[in-house]
């Protein structure tokens, strides 16, 4: 831009100079020519005067000759004087013209001869009278002299006229020349101005540069702005920059930027062996660079500069936004002190502590963290926390469309988060982190207490294994009980069948001992059959259980009573019940439960009519508590707990047969339904068994 302008201005000045010089010369020459014209006219006039004077003197000479009147002599003398005067003037006027000078010499000679003659004639007239004088006059060639004189004057006049024509033409030519030069010069000047103007307009239109506009932008900026060229010279600056550095604008423009930013700025703009100026600048663009500024009074202050490039006709300029960061620096120093104190606290913590900023970079850590992750402190500070906690940590700190940073963090505060840590050697280990926020000058930092939970994890895994093992072993046991009892049944069936066959075919045919032995064998076999049957039933509760569905407990009871019909009829028992609700149950097991409880109620009686009543009452919102109340033997209080155990019996076999498994089955069924079973009893007056079942979902 400036180059273009300079060139244009130079061209315009040159054009004006040339035009002026040529015009001046033309005008000077023209006026010279005019002078010459005037001079020629003067010569012509004097020639006319000279001739007239000569004629005056000659005619007055004649007049005196004829009249003798003295007055003619006066005029005659005046004529001579005028002639001489004109001759002198002409001689002066025509000094530059040798031809005219020669003719003037001839004219002077002729004039002298004429005056000599006239003087002679006049003396003769005075001394010898008219005739003598006239005779001399006629004898002497007076007329010839005058004719010669007239001819010479005519020649001189012709010469002057010729010169006049020449000089007038010359003057006119020079005038035309001057006009042409002026016109051309003006046109040239206008052209240059036009071209420059158009060029400037075009540049403006392209927006490459608009000094005024850019200056306006600079002034509008809240920061101090300094525009520097590649040479490190200040090109432009704004008021804020003047205030910031304490200089007036004119003291800085054109000066080196090093005067106000002694180090680190100019160096950044300079190309070196490995990079071009553009690259050097590109590396700096957009990043805040912390440097030191120097005021006019020599005091330094911390600044942060942000560079951006500005294309211009002079090449790429650099716009630097200069911010005074004294306050921030002070805050940082304060923070550093705070951090010093905080570090003390960190080091005292028993866990590994890592402080991370919102960008996911590690800001601080303690010795425990160094040990835990196997890094030295300086290897971690400033690094991404992802390096040591690859997943799940940094993500928790990041704001997204749904939540702010604070919210994101708030969700995590105080809760133990189980993640995986990575040591320097690449090995992973389980960790639990607890996050807490830490307000700082840089915004909210996150303090993470990182605990190595390898041991706990192992213990947990161990426990899980144990639980699995236990479950498997329980299942195996159930399976074993089932298979064992099922497979036991086969040989037992043989024993029972053949002892029964023996008893049937040979009873009374052998001796009484044989009959008794066979009877024991038959009884033992059938008791073992019941035992195995009950054991199978018990193991079925766990292994053959069905899903819990909505089941009518009244229908289940009816079903159980049908199964018990034989015993009820045998004992004449009276079984009553209230309306019973629907419950969530495995119907088969519910039938079994009622069957066992009602069966027991009927069975354990001394005498009289067994009375059994079944009812249900709501317990809270979700359970039904069933009661099976009888008027039987009752149970001594010390046995109340035992009766639900396996093989627990309270009576001799010859009083009441049984395997001691029935109530254990009841307990197992109720527990499988998420409930519990209990008994209340007054010995001699009866017992009440209670169990709770979940309400039907339909209720």
């Amino acid at each position: 831009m400036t180059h273009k302008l300079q060139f244009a201005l130079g061209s315009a000045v040159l054009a004006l100079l040339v035009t002026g010089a040529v015009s001046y010369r033309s005008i000077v020459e023209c006026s010279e020519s005019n002078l010459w014209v005037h001079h020629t006219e003067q010569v012509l006039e004097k020639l006319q005067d000279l001739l007239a004077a000569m004629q005056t003197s000659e005619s007055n000479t004649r007049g005196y000759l004829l009249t003798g009147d003295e007055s003619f002599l006066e005029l005659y003398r005046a004529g001579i004087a005028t002639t001489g005067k004109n001759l002198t003037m002409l001689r002066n006027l025509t000094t530059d013209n040798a031809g005219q000078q020669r003719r003037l010499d001839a004219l002077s000679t002729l004039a002298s001869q004429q005056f000599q003659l006239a003087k002679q004639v006049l003396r003769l007239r005075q001394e010898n009278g008219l005739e003598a004088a006239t005779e001399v006059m006629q004898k002497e060639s007076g007329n010839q002299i005058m004719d010669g004189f007239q001819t010479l004057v005519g020649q001189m006049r012709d010469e002057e006229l010729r010169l006049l024509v020449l000089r007038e033409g010359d003057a006119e030519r020079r005038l035309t020349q001057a006009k042409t030069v002026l016109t051309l010069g003006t046109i040239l000047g206008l052209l240059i101005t036009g071209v420059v103007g158009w060029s400037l307009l075009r540049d403006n239109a392209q927006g490459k540069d608009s000094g005024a506009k850019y200056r306006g932008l600079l002034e509008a900026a809240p920061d101090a702005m300094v525009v520097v060229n590649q040479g490190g010279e200040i090109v432009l600056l704004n008021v804020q920059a003047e205030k910031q550095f304490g200089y007036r604008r004119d003291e800085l423009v054109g000066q080196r930027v090093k005067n106000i930013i002694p180090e680190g700025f100019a160096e950044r703009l300079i190309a070196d062996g490995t990079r071009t100026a553009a690259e050097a600048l590109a590396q700096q663009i957009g990043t805040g660079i912390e440097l030191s500024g120097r005021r006019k009074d020599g005091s330094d202050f911390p600044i942060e500069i942000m560079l951006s490039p500005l294309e211009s006709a002079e090449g790429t300029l650099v716009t630097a936004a200069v911010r005074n960061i004294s306050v921030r620096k002070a805050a940082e120093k304060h923070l550093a002190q705070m951090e010093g104190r905080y570090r003390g606290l960190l080091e005292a913590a028993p866990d590994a502590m890592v402080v991370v900023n919102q960008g996911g970079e590690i800001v601080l850590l303690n010795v425990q963290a160094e040990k835990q992750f196997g890094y030295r402190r300086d290897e971690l500070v400033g690094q991404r926390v992802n390096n040591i906690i690859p997943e799940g940590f940094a993500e928790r700190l990041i704001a997204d469309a749904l939540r702010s940073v604070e919210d994101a963090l708030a969700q995590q505060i105080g809760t133990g988060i189980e993640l995986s840590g990575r040591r320097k050697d690449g090995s992973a280990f389980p960790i639990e982190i607890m996050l807490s926020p830490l307000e700082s000058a840089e915004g909210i930092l996150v303090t993470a207490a990182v605990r190595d939970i390898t041991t706990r994890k192992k213990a947990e895994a161990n426990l899980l294994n144990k639980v699995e093992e236990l479950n498997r072993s329980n299942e195996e046991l159930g399976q074993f009980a089932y298979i064992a009892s099922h497979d036991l049944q086969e040989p037992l069936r043989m024993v029972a069948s053949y002892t029964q066959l023996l008893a049937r075919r040979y009873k009374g045919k052998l001796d009484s001992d044989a009959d008794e032995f066979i009877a024991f064998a038959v009884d033992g076999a059938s008791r073992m059959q019941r035992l195995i049957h009950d054991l199978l039933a018990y193991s079925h509760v766990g292994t053959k259980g069905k899903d819990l569905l909505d089941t009518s407990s009244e229908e289940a009871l009816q079903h159980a009573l049908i199964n018990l019909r034989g015993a009820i009829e045998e004992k004449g028992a009276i079984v009553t019940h209230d309306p019973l609700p629907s419950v969530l149950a495995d119907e088969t097991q519910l039938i079994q439960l009622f069957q066992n409880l009602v069966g027991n109620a009927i069975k354990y009686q001394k005498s009289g009519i067994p009375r059994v009543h079944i009812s249900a009452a709501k317990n809270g919102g979700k359970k039904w508590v069933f009661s099976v109340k009888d008027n039987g033997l009752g149970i001594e209080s010390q046995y109340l707990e035992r009766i639900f155990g396996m093989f627990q019996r309270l009576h001799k076999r010859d009083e009441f047969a049984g395997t001691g498994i029935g109530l254990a089955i009841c307990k197992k069924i109720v527990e499988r339904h998420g409930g519990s079973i209990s008994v209340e009893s007054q010995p001699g007056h009866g017992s009440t068994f209670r169990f709770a079942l979940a309400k039907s979902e339909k209720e």
Partner: protein
Amino acid sequence: MPIEVLLVEDSPGDVRLTREAFRDANMSIHLHVASDGVEAMAFLRHEGAHADAPRPDIILLDLNLPKMDGREVLAHIKEDNSLKTIPTVILTTSAAEADVVKSYQLQANCYLTKPVQLDAFEGLVKSINDFWLSKVKLPQQRQKT
């Protein structure tokens, strides 16, 4: 005309019990016994020592057998056009639902579990006799294809 019954049963005790029970129920029964699945198929196909074996009117088949179990024997019988018309009654100690379902899928004619009590077992054999050997009309000729 005697009734030919093939009992496929590996337990001698059960064989004897069944024989005793049938003897009480029906004197005109010829009870043939195969103690494993392979022998049962040999009997039915008159192979080897069983060249002169009669075609049974009914087969009582236990499921758990040595060599070839009852399920395989049942499958072979029901795949064989000359054998599949013979009523095949499963008589086993297994009460497992899977066995019941599998047997009917293999086209067993009925499925019975051996009762534990002697009286009940005798009752069951009597029921078999009364139903399958007395009431049911069975094909008299061998079906050849």
